């Protein structure tokens, strides 16, 4: 039977396994569901293979090399550290890379990075949305003047990325920024950062964390009595992280772009075809949790990429090159989402040749002590500011890498 090979880079081991496991389960279960329910995509079975990276760049690169020979249609590294070395290779090996809302933000520019996709929003988008939301709460962005916003971030490229934008916005709107870097090895030991928070008394706290850092931060915030309803995070904390704070964590907010819960036909199908049949590794009660659904969203993009590729090429068994084209033609409008059994799961999103990100809107959700509750309408990123950052970064990348190839890949949606 025909098949396409979809490797899934996962980390069910190592210090970041807490986040890695639900994501891996979600990714796997959605594609497995397609296999079970529809016999794959367009009649082609998906061969799923997990490669364990342990969130370690070394092993991630090894994974990439080991799957490279098997004609993968797409690779999703699930780590910024692994994504970076893969970016230059992608174009040579003709394997598209999906780094969903992580990785190199500049790779949103499809004209410069034809092989890399990072939908549905960049970290800059995320930061601008959070500031916008805070501004609205205050009664307008101008009201931010004189306020102080604390930025608690992992002291690594990932956490530092939004800083220039944040500072830019601070200048623009007259608020003050206080930075609280958390080193990777001190992730779980943030008492000095929170002491400084107590000293500086920021009006709002924004967090860019990953893995154990999120849970520890919530705990510390509760411990040090920071008002939780002023504590915001980018889209990475899961339920477990919020739960860690106990009852005190109520009010903690984070940005998200997809639903939690299982009230969607596709998720029901996952339960029916995968979980109930014992084909999933996920505990039943974790299905539908935030990071699980994050994994689903990731697989949704993969599946759409493959489906679009089949449509474009007319082939059943598509290659990485085809899927790259397919990805550029993803259009998740309400109709398509409904078709997929995911109506209302996420906001519409479109990728094009030039825009590999879509800069989609996201919404704010709040922890009510036991689950996430959506508390806002979609928030659009501040396109203007983000655009400037993005273009500068993309230009910078191309400048620093002389000989970076001009896009020669074909584009199917020139419009």
């Amino acid at each position: 039977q025909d098949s396409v090979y979809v490797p899934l880079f996962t980390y069910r081991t190592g210090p970041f396994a807490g986040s890695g496991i639900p994501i891996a389960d979600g990714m796997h279960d959605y594609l497995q569901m397609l296999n079970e329910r529809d016999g794959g995509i367009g009649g082609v079975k998906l061969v799923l293979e997990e490669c364990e990276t342990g969130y370690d760049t070394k092993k991630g690169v090894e994974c990439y090399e080991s799957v490279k020979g098997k004609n993968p249609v797409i690779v999703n590294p699930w780590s910024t550290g692994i994504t970076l070395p893969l970016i230059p290779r992608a174009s040579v090996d003709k394997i598209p890379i999906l780094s969903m809302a992580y990785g190199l933000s500049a790779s949103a520019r499809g004209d410069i990075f034809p092989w890399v996709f990072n939908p549905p929003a960049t970290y800059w988008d995320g930061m601008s949305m959070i500031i916008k939301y805070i501004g609205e709460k205050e009664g307008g962005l101008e009201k931010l003047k004189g306020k102080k916003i604390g930025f608690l971030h992992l002291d690594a490229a990932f956490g530092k990325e939004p800083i220039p934008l944040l500072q830019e916005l601070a200048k623009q709107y007259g608020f003050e920024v206080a930075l609280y870097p958390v080193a990777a090895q001190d992730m779980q030991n943030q008492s000095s950062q929170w002491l400084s928070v107590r000293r500086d008394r920021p009006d709002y706290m924004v967090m860019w964390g990953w893995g154990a850092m999120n849970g520890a931060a919530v705990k510390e915030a509760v411990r040090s009595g920071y008002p939780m309803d002023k504590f915001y995070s980018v889209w990475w904390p899961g339920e477990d992280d919020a739960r860690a704070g106990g009852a005190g964590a109520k009010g903690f907010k984070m940005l998200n772009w997809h639903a939690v819960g299982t009230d969607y036909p596709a998720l029901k199908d996952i339960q029916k075809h995968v979980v109930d049949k014992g084909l999933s590794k996920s505990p039943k009660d974790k299905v539908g949790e935030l990071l699980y659904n994050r994994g689903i969203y990731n697989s949704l993009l993969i599946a759409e990429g493959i489906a679009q590729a089949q449509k474009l090429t007319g082939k059943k068994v598509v290659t990485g090159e085809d899927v790259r084209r397919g990805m550029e033609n993803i259009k998740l409008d309400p109709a398509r989402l409904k078709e997929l059994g995911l109506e209302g799961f996420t906001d519409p999103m479109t990728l094009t040749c030039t825009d590999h990100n879509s800069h989609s809107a996201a919404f704010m959700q709040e922890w009510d002590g036991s689950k996430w509750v959506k508390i806002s309408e979609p928030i659009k990123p501040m396109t203007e500011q983000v655009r400037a950052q993005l273009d500068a970064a993309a230009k910078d990348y191309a400048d620093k890498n002389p000989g970076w190839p001009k896009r020669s890949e074909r584009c199917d949606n020139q419009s």
Partner: protein
Amino acid sequence: MLYREAGQFKTNYVADSAIFPLRQDRIGIGLIIVAAYALAFLGNDFLLQAVLIPFLVFSLASIGLNILTGYTGLLSLGTGAFMGVGAYACYKLMTAFPEVNVIVWILMSGFFSAAIGALFGLPSLRIKGFYLAVATLAAQFFLQWCFIRIPWLVNYNVSGALEAPLRTLFGIPIIGATATPQTRYLVVLTIVILLTWLASNLVHGRIGRMWIAIRDMDLAAELMGIRPLQTKLLAFAVSSYYCGVAGALLVFLWYGGAEYDVFNINQSFFILFMVIIGGLGSLIGSFFGAALIFILPIVLGIVLPAMLSPFGISVGADVIEHLRFMIVGALIIFFLIVEPHGLARLWQIGKQKLLVWPFPY
């Protein structure tokens, strides 16, 4: 009965103090080198890119650390950071002076880590043993902090990461996305062979003897006129040089771009373990150690599923990973018990047995 030293007499001291006095050994080394070059054309991309290049890079770093820890007896947990210094220096140099050939910069970058290494080696005059680890740990964490905090080091890249711009040798790309695994492998292999040869010259000569003297009995060495500080600092510098070059190779010829995080403390431990399991104070041991610690898990990752599947056991990637950890851990202990002085000693004993074969002693 091919392996015999009988009949090989040395008629002068040059020959007698040769590094490989036995003809069979010399032939063996020659064959290995030829085979290593041949692999560039025989091996597939996976072998070259995911196994051999990193293996060579780690071997080089192990040689570096072996000079310090194995030969001079100074424990260092800062290898990762010293590798980082090399990588960042190389990046700065090759972007600031793109017209100079990058090979020059790779080899030059080691001098920067040598200088930094020597600086952090200063406390070694007073602090010894495991306590010295703290000085190198300070280096590890401080330098790592610098890598993140000084954006100048990465030319203010927004990603905060090192990138590998296109660089060529004789018009053939050796760094950058278009460089093929073959060419990269050949470059790495040549550099590693060259530096190994130099290291071997060093450790077999006066300087090597001084290092070992310091390691074995530093007080006696000093009483024999060996200056401890100079000798130790030299070891720090040479060691860091090797680590620095390895770091540059790691980023530019293996990963092709990396974050500061690849130079973290785990990298330091990783290299240290290669050195110990390979054999402290043995260059060839560095290669054995790198093979065991780096290649073995890869092999296990490939072999384990294949081994389990005939029994109808199909397990997830995570279980494989767990088994891999357990087996590697158990094997490390096993090898240490069989031969605490590392694989290199095991190798030597093997050769000795071969020399007297078929008699047991």
